[in-house]
């Protein structure tokens, strides 16, 4: 039988890996936008806080951050719940895992987004203001649409690194593709078959991501002339 009958279970693991990646990415984008906004806000306090955030996160291995936030968060939440007179909370690993990954990659996206915003000529924002647009309108009509184009290459990179980082969540007990492969290997004594299978699936996901985001980059760059030497 194909993969000893474990193929559907592995595919379900793939589904959960993709779900985790997508959820973490949305959280990371949120943190990234807030971080980039803080760094460019002109407020010294906000910029300092964002600097501490990105420096700390980028100076530590993802696995250590995962363990620290996952186990530390568990204890903190329960200490808070205890003070509030609530019972014991068992933190949902999916929620904790995606929040943690989102928080980590938010730091990397902060730099990507900051660079992308800086790449937009200042005069355009001034022109927007001169037309009487509010800050929100300048952000929505001028900055965001152009920022996407500048951010896509860095964004692609971070997304690829993040999909691969979700594999680490299996270490803190999340039921992802790696976890499924662990179970199947233990049951069938064919570990190589299963790890090679999931490696192939990761490769397929990264390949499709590269193709899609490349297409998106071309789409957002319509009307931008390339320099020809």
């Amino acid at each position: 039988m194909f993969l000893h009958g474990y193929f559907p279970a592995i595919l379900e693991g793939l589904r959960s890996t993709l779900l985790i990646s997508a959820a973490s990415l949305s959280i990371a984008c949120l943190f990234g936008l807030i971080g980039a906004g803080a760094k460019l806000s002109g407020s010294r306090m906000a910029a300092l806080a964002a600097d501490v955030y990105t420096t700390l996160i980028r100076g530590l291995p993802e696995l250590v951050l995962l363990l620290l936030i996952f186990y530390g968060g568990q204890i903190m939440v329960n200490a808070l719940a205890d003070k509030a007179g609530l019972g014991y909370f068992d933190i949902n690993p999916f929620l904790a895992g995606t929040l943690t990954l989102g928080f980590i990659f938010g730091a990397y996206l902060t730099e990507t987004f900051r660079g992308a915003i800086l790449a937009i000529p200042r005069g355009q924002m001034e022109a927007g203001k001169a037309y009487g647009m509010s800050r929100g309108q300048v952000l929505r009509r001028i900055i965001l649409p152009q920022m996407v184009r500048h951010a896509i290459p860095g964004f692609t990179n971070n997304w690829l690194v993040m999909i691969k980082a979700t594999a680490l969540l299996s270490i803190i007990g999340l039921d992802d593709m790696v976890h499924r492969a662990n179970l199947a290997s233990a049951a069938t004594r064919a570990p190589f078959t299963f790890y090679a299978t999931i490696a192939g699936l990761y490769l397929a996901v990264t390949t499709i991501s590269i193709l899609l985001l490349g297409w998106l980059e071309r789409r957002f760059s319509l009307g931008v002339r390339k320099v020809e030497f």
Partner: protein
Amino acid sequence: MIDWALIAESWPLYLNGLKVSLILMAISVSASFLLSVPLAIARVSPNPWLSKPVFLYTYVIRGTPLLVQLYMIYFGLAQFEWLRESIAWPLFRNAWFCAWLAFALNSTAYTTEILAGALRQTPSGELEAARSLGMSTATIYGRILLPSAIRRALPQYGNELVMVMHATSIASAVTIVELTRTARDVYYNHLAPFEAFGLVAVFYFVITFALVGLVKLLEGRFLRHLRPMSVPSKAA
């Protein structure tokens, strides 16, 4: 509150973990550097029989998680009876050897791409000049292309060194007691996540910044000729 007594008590364990992490990093980085120089040369070769297989290698490695690669080598290879009965089996049964192999192969893929990128940036005039002086291909690589490409690759290679340092934490998944495993053991024994993982975070943070500082020093030494001039000299 922070339990300082626990930190003081487990401090020697952490120092030992630090030693193991640094050794793991050193052996992985040296192997990957030695491997990636010839692979980068093959990667930029106009001969597709040389460049395509290297591209395939770097693409597959860079497209899959390191944890899965490590599992494939450490847990996976035991599936094959011919390997279990070969003389190489004691090696593949050893967690250290498997971790070293996985990290070295992984880092080789990234380093190869970094070096190949730097080789491609060589000003074509330099190559033409070397050829017109009658240098052989080997001499051109040894004297012209590699020295300047490795210098150009230095900033990115520094990032890769930090990545490998951080990647060694994954060895904790295959019984190697390096820094992260030490922290996990301390956590399981005392259920003190902030002390256990906070302390190990400090260690990683210090190593990361020491590495960044080291690369900055090397850049100052080897990329001195590329530094912008501070004062534009007045033309005589």
